[in-house]
């Protein structure tokens, strides 16, 4: 080996370090052995051994979402790579920056159906922002540096780099990170159109019934964007609602915050969206979970959409003004312009609008009655929130009713503290995601709000949690049902509960004990508070089996195919049959 040359595998690890990677989540195998060898006793990068490659990606997502950094994954070829696909798709849908390194059979065997060969770049093409198959060792370093740029710039997303084993073993000359990006990978112009900002500012100032609707793009833009959004809301004194992905961007305690909007959003948020005259969408994408039936979506409003991804603008909802750019830059320009104009123009009085909104609020759409000894799942989340709000608490969730209850009843005062699978709705996301979050924030309180069915999807990660002594609290709202499926079957399929009962559940307390961690169980409301306290006070990981009311439904709800103003607040409201179009919706 000549001086100055290092192995491809060593170059990969060096490039990761150069890109400030501190943690990598992975699982070894034949095609990545040289990389694992390069990681052996490496002091700069900590490798976290997960128990399934899907979990590696979710853990990296949790890490990325709670820190704003790029999450990093290492998997072997064939089954290692295919196992990672769900995670990559999840990251693509929720715009999370991920680098996934996958091993590949040596270049001369590619295409021969070699052992553990899979067309990884082919399979992952539609679920990555970009991917590479490295066939030329000389390009290795450059590709890795570029991948970090691509993953984290513009609208973030996952990038996969497929690394044939011979490339890992070859000699390469290390190439340093190039500081200048050649291409603006997202084609968003950085120069702000002042004229447009002025028009939008004027529109907002003169609106009688404005609403701001914010999404995950604000989280991705960084904490400054959240501060600016809150400033904008306060300056205009206008109502604001957030999507599932955006929760925390405006503190839940802000008096103008109407709660989450969309399918399980609050009555006031959805009706304000329906009846507004000016809507400002910041970093959200008019997802179908948010808009309800499109031809009845906010019919009389002028719409403004700020998004870093040009293709999001006018994709499903045509808007009057589209502004392409990073939320924090646009928000800054907008806040400044509004303050400037504010001196000349008076803000339209919104007294009438607020009294209308308060009227909707009076319906108390999140109200529920905790009667009897059975624990209402809503109460479980409410108590969890009350008892943890003085900690630096990070919440991850799985997918289902518990996820929606968490979004409705847990209050988020800061961005980056709420990790949930929004776009893909991946059951099994929460537990591995909490691993990534706890690794990034060892001192914080990390809770996976889970459903018993979702928990079973990635529960092998208990082993990871124990190995790294991660004090994660797994708060299972155990209703013995795939609750959200059961609810849809009740509402749309005449209560024919086909295959939605979670039979043969394990004893979660014994399961915990078998891993050497604490298991708690509660089924009486009178013991709920004490159990939550106990859970928080235990130093290590805990599984808390919260036995909740089994057939509770999640309300309010916009039934599928319905519009914002056709929300139902309880099962009794569900007197209309779901339309045929509605039945076809997911």
């Amino acid at each position: 080996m000549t001086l100055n040359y290092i192995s491809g595998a060593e170059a990969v690890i060096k490039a990761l370090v150069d890109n400030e990677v501190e943690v990598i989540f992975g699982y070894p195998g034949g095609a990545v052995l040289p990389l694992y060898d390069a990681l052996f006793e490496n002091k700069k990068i900590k490798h976290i051994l997960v128990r399934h490659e899907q979990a590696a990606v979710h853990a990296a997502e949790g890490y990325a979402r709670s820190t704003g950094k790029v999450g990093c994954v290492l998997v072997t070829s064939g089954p290692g790579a295919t196992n990672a696909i769900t995670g990559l798709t999840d990251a693509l849908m929720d715009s999370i920056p991920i680098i996934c390194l996958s091993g590949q059979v040596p270049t001369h065997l590619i295409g021969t159906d070699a052992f553990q060969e899979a067309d990884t770049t082919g399979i992952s093409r539609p679920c990555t922002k970009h991917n590479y198959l490295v066939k030329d060792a000389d390009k290795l370093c450059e590709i890795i540096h570029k991948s970090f740029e691509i993953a984290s710039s513009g609208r973030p997303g996952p990038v996969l780099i497929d690394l044939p084993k011979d490339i890992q073993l070859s000699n390469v000359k290390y190439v340093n990170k190039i500081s200048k990006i050649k291409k603006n990978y997202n084609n968003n112009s950085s120069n702000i159109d002042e004229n447009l900002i002025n028009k939008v500012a004027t529109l907002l100032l003169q609106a009688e019934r404005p609403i701001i609707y914010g999404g995950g793009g604000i989280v991705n833009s960084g904490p400054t964007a959240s501060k600016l959004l809150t400033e904008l809301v306060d300056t205009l004194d206008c109502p604001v609602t957030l999507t599932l992905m955006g929760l925390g961007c405006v503190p839940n305690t802000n008096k103008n915050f109407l709660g989450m909007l969309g399918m399980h959003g609050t009555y006031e948020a959805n009706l304000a969206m329906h009846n507004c005259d000016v809507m400002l969408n910041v970093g959200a994408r008019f997802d179908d979970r948010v808009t309800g039936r499109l031809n009845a979506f906010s019919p009389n409003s002028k719409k403004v959409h700020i998004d870093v991804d040009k293709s999001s603008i006018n994709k499903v909802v045509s808007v009057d003004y589209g502004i392409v750019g990073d939320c924090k830059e646009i928000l800054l320009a907008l806040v400044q312009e509004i303050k400037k104009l504010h001196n000349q123009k008076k803000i339209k009085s919104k007294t009438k609008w607020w009294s209308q909104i308060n009227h909707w609020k009076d319906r108390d759409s999140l109200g529920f009655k905790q009667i009897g000894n059975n624990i209402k799942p809503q109460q479980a989340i409410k108590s969890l929130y009350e008892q943890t709000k003085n900690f630096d608490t990070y919440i991850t969730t799985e997918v289902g009713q518990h996820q929606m209850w968490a979004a409705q009843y847990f209050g988020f005062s800061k961005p980056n503290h709420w990790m949930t699978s929004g776009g893909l709705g991946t059951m099994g996301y929460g537990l591995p995601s909490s691993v990534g979050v706890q690794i990034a924030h060892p001192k914080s309180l990390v809770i996976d709000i889970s459903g018993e069915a979702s928990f079973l999807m990635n529960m092998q990660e208990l082993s990871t949690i124990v190995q790294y002594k991660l004090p994660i609290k797994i708060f299972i709202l155990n209703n013995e049902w795939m609750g959200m499926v059961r609810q849809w079957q009740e509402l749309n399929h005449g209560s024919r509960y086909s295959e939605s009962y979670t039979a043969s559940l394990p004893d979660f307390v014994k399961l915990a004990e078998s891993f050497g961690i604490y298991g708690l169980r509660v089924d009486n409301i009178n013991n709920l508070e004490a159990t939550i306290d106990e859970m928080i006070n235990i130093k290590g990981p805990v599984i808390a089996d919260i036995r909740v009311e089994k057939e509770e439904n999640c309300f309010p709800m916009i039934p599928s195919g319905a519009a914002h103003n056709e929300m139902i607040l309880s099962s009794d409201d569900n007197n209309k049959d779901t339309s045929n179009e509605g039945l076809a919706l997911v």
Partner: protein
Amino acid sequence: MSVYQKNEVVEVKTSRTLSLVVDNQPGTLARVIGLFSGRGYNIESLNVTEIDEIRNLSRISLVTRGTSNTIEQIKSQLLRIVPVHIVRDLTLEGPFIKSELALVKLVVKGANRVEALRIAETFRARTLDVTLSSFVFELTGKPSKLDAFIDLMRSLGDTEVSRTGVSAISRGDKTETKLLDQI
């Protein structure tokens, strides 16, 4: 107003010719095509070849059909693809030239052979191969001209057709040199 309402007023779909400059690397074409199939857009014609060996660039000429909203979506979705550098909408930009090449084999005997040659001459097709029972013609021009020629040939005998798909370029002195330098 929402898109949905606009859709109720049936919007006209038009044919658009797009011209893309992309990195000539494996996977780029797959991403472009995957975008069309994955999002339900259609491709009427596609043509790809390297145009710059030093910078390793290819041009994709692509004809698609859709409402103006859909076309705008297609263009911005294409620009999200990392190795796609330039997306030009030639139809929107102004006058442009669209040209295609076809190779047409005709199996024919007897009197129809003269007819075939006469038609080929009228269309200014070149005769590339002759046997006692067949011809291969080469024809370039607008797709509609190629269509007409092929139709006529079909009525004379058994045919086999190979077409390149549309290649397109704008008229006038406008070039992409500046844009390309930024890549």
